[in-house]
């Protein structure tokens, strides 16, 4: 399942992955634009509004019913970071041709619907979005912004990210702030949609069994003149300098949630990128990691204690939930494990376990079209293309010295504590 990278029309690119392994197929369209405070929220709104109504499917209900008729084709949207870029995606998951009567199957119709969603939103006679749709989506957006508190762990990590990357695109919210929602209008959003149409370079990914020339032809027919050159990929990747930035907020919760933000000058294109992935894996990436085995299992300080890495930005977050009184002990233990890693205290068992876990993850990617396409879309967007197998082989060649070297490129930059204020004794009624 080696991918082919093919041009589509003037500005588009297709990541084509041929396989008949699955009963369903996947087609996604994404475009990445610089993540900026002035446009991030509008971009999120334009993406959401596409589901409200199009020229052919003027209501959400009519669009959903059409997708139902297409053997329950699902089209999801996403809004995420790739480095300091905002990546907006539409992903269709649909039954393969052999289960829907053969022929070309559902792909032509899926492409037609995707094109409709992206290019033909329902507009009024003045070329603006429908007012009622905009007002409805504004309320959904306000709710989503406020709902950050519903997920305490995610809230703590978002705050740590804001502290760690303050003043940078990565530090801003992908859905913006509540006070700017009121300023959104049908006209300003239509203008943003129009601008995206002209500036974004479409990136497609297809995982399925239709021959590549036919897929390209179908895409060019629907998207041939769509988009523009696209903005150059950007991601400010650097180690943290200066004091550790600290934040704390109280909430009526039983636990405290601690998020530690680390930063490095290593990202996907760096020679130590595979070593960085292993640093995260050994530190807190799995149940065989230092955080899990030592902070959770040996010290019994918490249930959840893990770390995650964004390879495109070079940031790593370690998070944990514990009784408020145990915050200092948990933080000390989490940092101590990290310093152990920096000092090279990595056992043979830990190293092998981490390599095998990552090998398993990347071999397993071939079983999941969504994982496979996301891997390549990230790589193409960040100009860091390599195949899954080549990446896995690089991971397997990483030495202990490289892991220690990568770990010493990392420094703590931020810590955020969400302090629970509900007494954590026996809380049963």
């Amino acid at each position, binding site marked *: 399942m080696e991918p082919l990278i093919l041009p589509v029309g003037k500005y588009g690119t297709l990541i084509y992955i041929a396989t008949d*392994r*699955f*009963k*369903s197929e996947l087609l996604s369209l994404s475009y990445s634009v610089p993540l900026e405070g002035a446009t991030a929220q509008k971009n999120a709104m334009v993406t959401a509004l596409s589901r409200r109504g199009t020229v052919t499917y003027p*209501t*959400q*209900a009519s669009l*959903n*019913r059409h*997708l*139902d*008729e297409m*053997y*329950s084709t699902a089209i999801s949207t996403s809004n995420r970071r790739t480095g300091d870029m905002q990546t907006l995606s539409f992903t269709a*998951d649909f*039954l393969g041709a052999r*289960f829907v009567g053969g022929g070309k199957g559902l792909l032509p119709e899926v492409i037609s619907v995707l094109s409709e969603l992206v290019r033909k939103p329902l507009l009024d006679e003045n070329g603006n979005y429908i007012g*009622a749709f905009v007002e*409805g989506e504004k*309320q*959904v957006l306000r*709710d989503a912004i*406020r*709902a*950050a*508190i*519903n997920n*305490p762990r995610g809230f703590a990590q978002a705050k740590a990210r804001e502290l760690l990357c303050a003043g940078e695109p990565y530090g801003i919210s992908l859905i913006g702030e509540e006070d700017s929602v009121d300023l959104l209008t049908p006209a300003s959003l239509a203008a943003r949609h129009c601008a995206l149409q002209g500036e974004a370079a479409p990136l497609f990914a297809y995982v399925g069994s239709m021959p590549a020339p036919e897929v390209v032809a179908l895409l060019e027919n629907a998207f041939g003149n769509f988009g523009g050159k696209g903005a150059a990929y950007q991601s400010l990747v650097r180690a943290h300098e200066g004091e550790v930035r600290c934040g704390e907020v109280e909430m009526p*919760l*039983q*636990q405290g949630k601690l998020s530690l933000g680390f930063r490095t000058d290593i990202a996907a294109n760096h020679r130590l990128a595979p070593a960085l992935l292993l640093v995260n894996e050994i530190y807190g990436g*799995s*149940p*065989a990691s230092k955080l899990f*085995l030592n902070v*959770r*299992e040996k010290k*019994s*300080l*918490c*249930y*959840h204690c893990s770390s995650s890495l964004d390879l495109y930005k070079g940031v790593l977050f370690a998070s944990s*939930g*514990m009784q408020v009184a145990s915050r200092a002990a948990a933080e000390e233990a989490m940092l101590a494990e990290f310093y152990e890693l920096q000092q090279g205290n990595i056992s043979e*068992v830990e190293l*092998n*376990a981490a390599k*095998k*876990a990552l*090998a*398993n*993850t990347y*071999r*397993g990617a*071939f*079983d999941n079209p969504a994982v496979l396409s996301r891997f390549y879309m990230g790589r193409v967007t960040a100009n860091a293309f390599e195949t899954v197998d080549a990446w896995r082989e690089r991971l397997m060649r990483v030495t202990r010295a490289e892991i220690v070297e990568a770990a010493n490129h990392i420094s703590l930059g931020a810590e955020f504590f969400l302090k*629970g204020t509900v007494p954590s004794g*026996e*809380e*049963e009624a």
Partner: protein
Amino acid sequence: MKQVFKSELLGEQYTLFTHSSGLRIYVFPKKMTSTYALLATDFGAVDNAPLCDGKMPVPDGVAHFLEHKLFSNEDGSDAFEHFSACGADANAYTSHTRTVYLFSCTENFADALGELVDFVTHPYFTAETVQKEQGIIAEEIRMCRDNPYDCCYYNMLEGLYEKHPVKIDICGSVSSIAAITPEVLYEVYQTYYQLSNMALVVCGDVTPDAVFEIADNHLPRCAEHRIPPRRKTLEGRAVNRARIEDVGQVAKSIFSIGVKDTAIPEEPTERLKRDAGMAILCEMLFSESGELYNTLFDEGLISPEFSADYALTRDFAFLQLSGEANDPDLVFDRIRAYLAKKKAEGLCFADFERCHRIEYAEYIKSFDSTEEIANTLLSFIFEGAELFSYAEVLMSIDFTFVEQLLLEVFDDTHYTLSVIVPKKEEI
């Protein structure tokens, strides 16, 4: 004993072996990179009948506690470490009705499968390790208490059921797990972890005979066969409480409407038919393509995330409708009015055909993942049904059957509303 099940529609097949120890071994060959295996016992949070002739109470949360503790080996090692050494990704979960130990791997399958069978069949508990686990699980319980969606779900179950143990928190409480001792764990283990009460399911690029041989090398020749105690809790259709409200860390109220269903067929195929019929009916009534969702959403009464999930086991059944709303009571009223209208007017046949097709497509798509196949197969095994028969059952469902379900399931006395409202200062 060996039995092969085939599906022409899907082009798939799987094999069942019944091992001399009583363990049922299911192997579903699938040309994928990852192989997924699970070893499960038909024992979950609802199984709380007292043991030792009624002398030993079973504390709430013991199934989940046991799941955690089985990973600790007698030599002081942790099963996770062994799986990691094989490059396998291991995990476990406990639900209302079962406990499942699992792994996925892309190499060293035989070693990983041996480890799975070994650690689950060799319990080792001491007072010290039990005490340590109490600390970890207490934090898990607190974490769940901080999750408003979990709280809303359990309040919904409390609203539906007066005494059925499905309403017990799967993790138990800080005080209930404090009563767990090694003796309790050993007794529970001996009762519910008999191999005849368990199933091994493997899906991946493997052959049935090879899997059987590996498992056979790690299993005893024979084992005790006792039928575990099952407490049958009989409940009427009426709900325990019609409304439960709690305050939580939410920006906007979240709600969970429960619909109690007690008409549970004894016969597995009939249960399967009811389950499939309810899946079609829920799609017709509550999906994003339907009248109800779009009306409520367009009026701004609900947030986009609105879901309907029907759960049916041999012992309990309920439908859950979940979402976010500024006024959950108004949404509840509108849903009840809509259901009453549908009952009076009847369903639309075109909707039935569309939703029937959706269920067919979803069934086929579910055979693209070794993890999903293994877990779905397990559900069928413990419910006494056969996986491939679902397609036939689905095809046998007609419009009249679904209309009958509508009339039977939805009634004002079967509903409960659970709401988590924001704290005042957060509004």
